[in-house]
């Protein structure tokens, strides 16, 4: 019986080594075309726009509840954006994706928003025209449009966060992706409630 257990344990140890060899050691940095790098670069760009919009609402909204939520979103995503650029620096990768590279090509296996060629504008991102409209609005109109843009922005980021939570190689990348997915999913509910409480509806899909 004892001999059988030893054989089993040796077999298990060998299996672990084979598994480690096939995915790389945890110390090995993910490469230029990896899911980990693609997620970190694209989610950083996605976050930076949310930080832009939230900063405007924190400065300009006359609605206390919205100003508080805006500060929460701005400070959270600023910290997460810093984590993403810190990882990319350690991995020897660009902290922003190269200028001629479409977004979301790292999600080629997802068969959802992006096909293998990627996209120029990620789901949920506001266009330059929409941001200009936001800057021009005042009072309740500004507050409601901010909530509508931020709701669509959160929803758009979910597919990236969920895919990375399932498929990134490094555990700390999967963890942050999972936290972003679950945190933003909860805020999607909150933002929807806040929009309706102000007599408006989410932007048409």
């Amino acid at each position, binding site marked *: 019986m004892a001999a059988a*257990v030893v054989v*089993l*344990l040796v*077999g*298990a*140890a060998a*299996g*672990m080594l084979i*598994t*480690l060899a*096939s*995915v*790389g050691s945890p110390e090995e940095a993910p490469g*230029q*075309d*990896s*899911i980990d790098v*693609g997620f970190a670069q694209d989610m*950083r*760009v996605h976050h*930076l*726009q949310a*930080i*832009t919009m939230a*900063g*405007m609402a924190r400065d300009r909204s006359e609605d206390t509840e919205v100003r508080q939520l805006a500060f929460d979103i701005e400070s959270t995503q600023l910290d997460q954006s*810093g984590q993403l*650029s810190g990882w990319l*620096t350690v991995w*020897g*990768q*660009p*902290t*922003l994706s*190269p*200028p*001629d*590279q479409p977004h979301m*090509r*790292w999600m*080629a*296996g997802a068969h959802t928003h992006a096909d*293998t060629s*990627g996209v*120029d*504008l990620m789901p949920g*991102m506001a266009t*330059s025209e929409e941001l*200009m409209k936001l*800057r*021009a609005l005042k009072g309740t109109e500004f507050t409601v449009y901010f909530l509508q843009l931020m709701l669509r922005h959160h929803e758009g980021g979910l597919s990236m966060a969920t895919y990375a939570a*399932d*498929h*990134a*190689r490094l555990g700390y990348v999967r963890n942050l992706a999972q936290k972003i997915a679950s945190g933003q999913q909860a805020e999607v509910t909150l933002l929807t409630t806040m929009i309706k409480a102000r007599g408006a509806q989410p932007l048409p899909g």
Partner: protein
Amino acid sequence: MIRYPRHLAVAAACLALVGCESQQQGSPVASGSSSGTSTSTSADPGFTPTEDNQDPTKKIDGVLAIEYEGAQHVKPTERVAYDHKPPLGGAHDAVWAPCNGVVYKKAVRTENLVHSLEHGAVWLTYDPDKLDGDGVAALEKRVNGKPYTVLSPFPGQAEAVSVQSWGRQLQVAKADDKRIDQFIQATRANQYLTPEPGASCDQIDPDRFDQDNPPPFDPSDPGPGAIPVTGR
């Protein structure tokens, strides 16, 4: 009745095989990692800043490199006697121009944009008399929606297109010159060349610099009262 004993057998095997759990976790990770290899990019990693390659512009022909001291601020009523057109560093307004993928259709005040360079932005400029609409559209595509980039006309510059980051500049005749993308990859938010890595490119004060109604470019000579490029 069939499923239950099989479930028990798997549980028993896992109890005996201590490595079983980690093998199960490892398997989907491995398949996810390998599927990422289909997303190859055209970018040359040699232009990415790293600890061993802090200034990749050294590999790009025709880049001007000058070291400037940061944080020399001037008032909105003051002008700086810059040493290059467009400038690539030096004293600047206390308020930066929004530079998070912003396209300025009209030329704007230089002193604000130099502050944007200090925050890690790449500033693309063109002479409207030397670049046609297709060329301008090609530059806009590189900026629209791209954090830490900004585009504006700069009347009177020597070449059709000029690209500058803090302390670095590339001037080229055509908007499709491949060195433009190489320069952006090498310098945008480069944590070694940027005096203030991580600083914001968002609008700080619309009363001092309104993204949608920015203070205009001043083509005149800055005059004898101008602040030196090295500051006071």
